[in-house]
């Protein structure tokens, strides 16, 4: 077990290094001057070259990469003398466009993305698995066919359509959710405002995923119900309810939960479209903006964060699967 975990840890670090190097490499071959972006209209060449030195863009690329890496552990100081400033560890760089340390920027957007992801996850699991169970139980009857229609519609509609539709109707036309929200409030400060803030984005995301999970749950349940061990359970006299929940559902939950874990990891990277439509200042929107503005430091940081989350979730999901399915355990 220890060996397994240490192997995974090494793999994680390696992947992060490679990912960051690739992003760094892409930016280094892009035909623009990062220093030129550091100031607005009233920019002179003097300021630009001064900034170039301050931010370290004059140094060779591998040195820049090394400074970036060491910054994660040691913090990084920009400039020299009285104009110097420091982004304390863990420092992922400094964003000129925002005039802030990247780490702080992420710290602000992360809770929003996490709230969005967790809420959507809970919603789509409940709806998806629930509908899947109903569809399987009433196979080929009206609950099943209507859930297929739902699945078809939900998978066909892109998030920006669903999101915009909800925004237009629920917020603007029907006014069920107030438009002028005062921005993000955490769950602990004001639960009601929290839910108001997130309810529509949650639904937007959940619809798309719920459809996939409905279909998957239904198929997995139907397949498992045909297995020999279900027949054995019935032959013992086990009642249908127990057959369904203890025997069938248990077998099906393992792959569903692992799938959910991976989907969740992907969301942490940022549900870009949803965040943009609903104006949520999460990681997704942050990344998008930074890509448009060629803000290397931010893009680098969010990419690494996303990669790390995916790898860690992979590990958690693998371990979890072993808990559920004894055949997979490392004995």
């Amino acid at each position, binding site marked *: 077990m220890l060996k397994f975990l240490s192997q995974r840890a090494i793999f994680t670090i390696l992947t992060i290094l490679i990912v960051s190097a690739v992003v760094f490499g892409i930016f280094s071959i892009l035909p623009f001057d990062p220093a030129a972006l550091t100031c607005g209209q009233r920019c002179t060449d003097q300021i630009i070259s001064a900034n170039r030195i301050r931010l370290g863009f004059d140094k060779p690329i591998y040195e820049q990469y090394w400074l970036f890496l060491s910054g994660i552990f040691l913090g990084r100081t920009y400039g020299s003398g009285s104009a110097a400033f420091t982004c304390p560890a863990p420092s992922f760089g400094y964003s000129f466009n925002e005039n802030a340390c990247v780490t702080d920027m992420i710290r602000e957007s992360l809770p929003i993305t996490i709230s969005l992801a967790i809420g959507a996850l809970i919603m789509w699991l409940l709806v998806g698995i629930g509908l899947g169970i109903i569809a399987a139980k009433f196979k080929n009857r009206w609950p099943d066919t209507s859930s297929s229609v739902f699945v078809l519609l939900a998978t066909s509609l892109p998030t920006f359509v669903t999101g915009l539709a909800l925004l237009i109707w629920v917020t603007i036309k029907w006014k069920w959710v107030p438009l002028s929200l005062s921005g993000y409030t955490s769950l602990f400060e004001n639960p009601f405002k929290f839910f108001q803030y997130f309810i529509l984005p949650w639904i937007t995301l959940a619809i798309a995923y719920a459809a996939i999970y409905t279909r998957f749950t239904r198929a997995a349940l139907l397949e498992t119900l045909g297995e020999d061990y279900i027949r054995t359970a019935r032959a*013992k006299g086990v009642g249908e309810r127990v057959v369904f929940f203890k025997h069938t559902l248990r077998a099906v939950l393992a792959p569903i939960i692992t799938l959910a874990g991976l989907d969740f990891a992907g969301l942490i990277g940022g549900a870009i479209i949803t965040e943009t439509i609903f104006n949520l200042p999460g990681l997704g929107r942050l990344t998008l903006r930074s890509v448009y503005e060629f803000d290397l430091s931010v893009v680098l940081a969010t990419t690494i964060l996303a990669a790390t989350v995916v790898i860690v979730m992979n590990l958690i999901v693998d371990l979890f699967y072993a808990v559920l*399915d004894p055949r997979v355990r490392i004995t």
Partner: protein
Amino acid sequence: MTELLRINDLKVSFKTDDGLVHAVDGVSLTVNAGETVAVVGESGSGKTVTSLSVMGLHKKGQAQLSGSISVNDHGTFKDVISLNDEEIRDIRGRAVAMIFQDPMSSLHPFYKIGNQLAEAYLVHNRGKKKEAMVRALEMLELVGIPEPKKRAEEFPHQFSGGMRQRVMIAMALMNSPQMLIADEPTTALDVTVQAQILTLLEKLKKEFNMGILLITHDLGVVAQVADRVNVMYAGRIIEEAPVDDIFYAPLAPYTLGLLKSVPRVTANNDRLKAIPGQPPSLINLPVGCPFAPRCEYKEHSAESGCNTTRPELLGTSATHRARCHIPESLRQELFAKEVKELLA
């Protein structure tokens, strides 16, 4: 002899996209305590469908059943076909138990063996968890699993094929059923393991005076353990007889055909006499005897009834009957020579 099971004129049909499949077309048989009754047939004969019907294990709404299946539940006879869901669940695992062909897929991969065994007991004895575990260990020991305590904490994939089948047998016996249905219990096992399992089943049958309904396609297995035999073809029993009669004095052309086509470990290497053709479709059963297209004795039947009317199950002896239009005495004469050659 106590009668444990009486199936009377059972008919089972399935609705499929291609039409109505008459899987079982009027089957009657009995099983008494202390005896092993074999139902022999090839795929499509209806033998497995028959066994599943006794436990009411067909998917709801898929199968249409008619006739009666009387199960002896500790003195009271109950007709499985007319029972409701709760009543059927009550007899499953308690009055009648079943073991299946593939023990790997028949055990739940996610639950420990001890847990699965205990469940069989708890279903009929609510809440008695401690008793259930004690009995589970007892049963594991009874079927010859070494270190039962340790193995009860393990999962099915940690057992070998033969061990898994023993576990299935242990599970079937948790509630001391009087009747056991064994559906091809050794087909998926190696021949040396098969010998072990069959010996075990015989021993347990004698010890608990159970009746066993054994479904199989293997004539060797039938010869080894069966007391009486029912040979099925195209959904009907075409011959029923005590085991010796089936092998030494068969009265149905199909039975004889099977005996001739089965490879034997004998001194001579004679060519096998195969039955030509294939079993009929169960959707469009031919008019007349279903075996007629493949029967090599047709010319001996009077009035060529073979292609027009279905023969009834008849015999001069009440215990040995067969379906065939050829007069019984003529059959005995014709088949005797062939059987003699087989056993030489």
